[in-house]
C-alpha cells in the first residue's frame, strides 16, 4: 500500500476521533481538529482559486495569448477591492452596480419562469384525466403523485398555506379553518424535512464509521485502534487534571 494512503488513513482517523471526542466534552483535541478543518478548507480554496482564476483564466490568456479584452473584467474586479480603502470606496459602487445589474437581469426572468410559473402550472393541473379508451376519469391512487386525488390535496395545501401567511385579513371564522389547515400542511412538511435531515445526519455518521472500520485493518497499521486508545487516554488524563486543579489551589 502506498505510504501516502497509510498517512492519509492515520490523519483521517485521528481527526475523525478528535471531532467525536466533543461528544464526551469540549477539549483541545476537538479544537485542534475543528481549526484544522476550517484552515485546510480555506487554504485549499485559496490555492485552487488562485491557480484556476489568476493563472489559467487571467494571466495566461492575457500575457501568452494576447487577449487584452480580459483587462476590462479584471478592472471591474479590482474596483471592488477599493472597498477596503475608505477614500476610494466610492469606486466600488460601479463594480457592484454592474454585477448586481447583470446578475438580476440574468437571474430574475429565469427564476420567475422556473420557480413560480412552472410550479403554478403544476399546481393547477386538471382534476379529470383523459384515459385512452375510457374517456375522462378521476384517479384515486394516493401513492401516485400525478393522481387526481393528490392534485386536489396539493391545491388545498398550497392555497391554505398561502392564506396562512396572508396577515392583512384576520384569521377568524372560515379564515381560521383555512389557516389551521395551512398550519397542518406546514407541520407535515416540516416533519418530513426533519425526518430527511435525521436520515442525512445518520448517513454522515455511517460514512465515518465505515471508514473507521476499514482503517482497523493491519495493512493501514490499525490507526483506528491505536488512535482510539490515544484519544481515550488523553481525555482521561485531561479529566483527571481538571478534577485535581481545584484541590491544588
Amino acid at each position, binding site marked *: 500500500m502506498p505510504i501516502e494512503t497509510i498517512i492519509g488513513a492515520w490523519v483521517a482517523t485521528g481527526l475523525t476521533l478528535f471531532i467525536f471526542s466533543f*461528544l*464526551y466534552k469540549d477539549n483541545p483535541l476537538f479544537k485542534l481538529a475543528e481549526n484544522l478543518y476550517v484552515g485546510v*478548507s480555506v487554504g*485549499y*480554496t485559496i490555492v*485552487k*482559486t488562485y491557480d*484556476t*482564476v489568476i493563472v*489559467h*483564466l487571467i494571466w495566461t490568456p492575457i500575457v501568452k495569448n494576447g487577449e487584452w479584452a480580459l483587462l476590462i473584467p479584471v478592472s471591474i474586479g479590482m474596483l471592488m477591492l477599493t472597498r477596503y480603502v475608505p477614500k476610494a470606496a466610492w469606486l466600488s459602487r460601479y463594480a457592484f452596480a454592474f454585477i448586481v445589474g447583470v446578475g438580476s437581469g*440574468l*437571474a430574475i426572468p*429565469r*427564476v420567475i*419562469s*422556473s*420557480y413560480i410559473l*412552472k*410550479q403554478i*402550472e*403544476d399546481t393547477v393541473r386538471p382534476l379529470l384525466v383523459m384515459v385512452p379508451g375510457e374517456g375522462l376519469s378521476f384517479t384515486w391512487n394516493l401513492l401516485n*403523485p*400525478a393522481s387526481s386525488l393528490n392534485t386536489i390535496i396539493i391545491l388545498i395545501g398550497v392555497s391554505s398555506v398561502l392564506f396562512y401567511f396572508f396577515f392583512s385579513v384576520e384569521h377568524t371564522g372560515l379564515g381560521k379553518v383555512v389557516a389551521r389547515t395551512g398550519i397542518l400542511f406546514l407541520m407535515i*412538511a416540516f416533519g*418530513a*424535512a426533519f425526518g*430527511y*435531515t*435525521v*436520515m*442525512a445526519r*445518520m*448517513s*454522515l*455518521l*455511517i*460514512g*465515518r*464509521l*465505515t471508514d473507521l*472500520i476499514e482503517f482497523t485493518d493491519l495493512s493501514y497499521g490499525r490507526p483506528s485502534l491505536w488512535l482510539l486508545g490515544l484519544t481515550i487516554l488523553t481525555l482521561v488524563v485531561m479529566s483527571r487534571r481538571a478534577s485535581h486543579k481545584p484541590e491544588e489551589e
Partner: protein
Amino acid sequence: MIFAERMLKIDRRIIFLVIGLCTLLPLLYPVGLPIKISPEVRGVYDYIESLPEGSVFLLSLDFDPASKPELHPQSISLLRHAFRKNLRVVAMTLWVSGTGMADQVVTQVAREMGKENGKDYVFLGWSPGGTAVIMNMGQDLYGAFPADYNGKPTKGLPVLQGIANLRDVTYAVSLGAGNPGVEAWYVFGKDKYKFELGGGCTGVMAPGLYPLLRSGQINGLIGGLRGAAEYETLIGQKGKAIAGMDAQSATHLAIIVLVILCNLFYFSLRRQSAQ
C-alpha cells in the same frame, strides 16, 4: 425524583452511545435487509438505460468532502452505469472545494471500467462563477472550459466531438449538496437549453426538490444514501451505500423508540404535575 423525570434528565452521552452502537453493530454484523426501489430513483436509472451508445452524459459533481458519505456512492453508481452503457461522460464540478475529490472518483471508476481519458470521458474540473458557468456552457462549452482538469485543450478531444454547447448534451445529472446544484442546473440550464435533467442530492435537500420532480422539471431524484443504495441495487453492484442501509434502519428505529419514550415520559410527568 420519579422515574419519568429521571429519564427525561438522562445524560445525553448515554443517548450518543445508544445511537453509536445502533450504527456500529449493523456495520460489523450486516443483516441484509431488502431495499425497495422508489419511482424517483428508477426515473434516473431508466433514462440512462434508454440512452443509445455514444450519447453525451454530463455529470456535475456539485459537492465537497462534507457531503461525501451520501453523494460519493451516488457518483460511483452513476459513473459505473454510464460507462457500462458506453456513454460519452463529461464530468465537472461547480464547487471548488470538491474538485480534487471529483477528479479522484471519475479517474477511479474510469480505470475500473477500462475507459480512456479524452476518448471515453473527460473531467473538465472547476470554473468560477457557479450559475454563470452553466450559462457560459450553454453558449459555448469551450469558452467555459478551454482546457480540461489536466490542462489539455478541450477543443479537439474525441469525447467532445460534435458538442458545441449544452444543447448537445443528451442527459445531465447534477449531484448537489447545496447551491449551486440541481436547482441552478434547472433554472439556468435545462429551462433555457432544453436538455433532460436528473438530480442527486443529500437527504437534507431532498424534500425541497420533490416539487421539481413532481412538475417534471427533473425526471428523477436520487436522495441521500438511501437513493444511492437503490441505485446500486438497480445496477447490480453492491457498494458502500447498500452496506450502510442496515445501520440506517437500526438508527432510525432507535430514534423512533427514543422519541416515543420521551413523549410518554413527558405526558406522564405533565399528568402527575396536574394531579
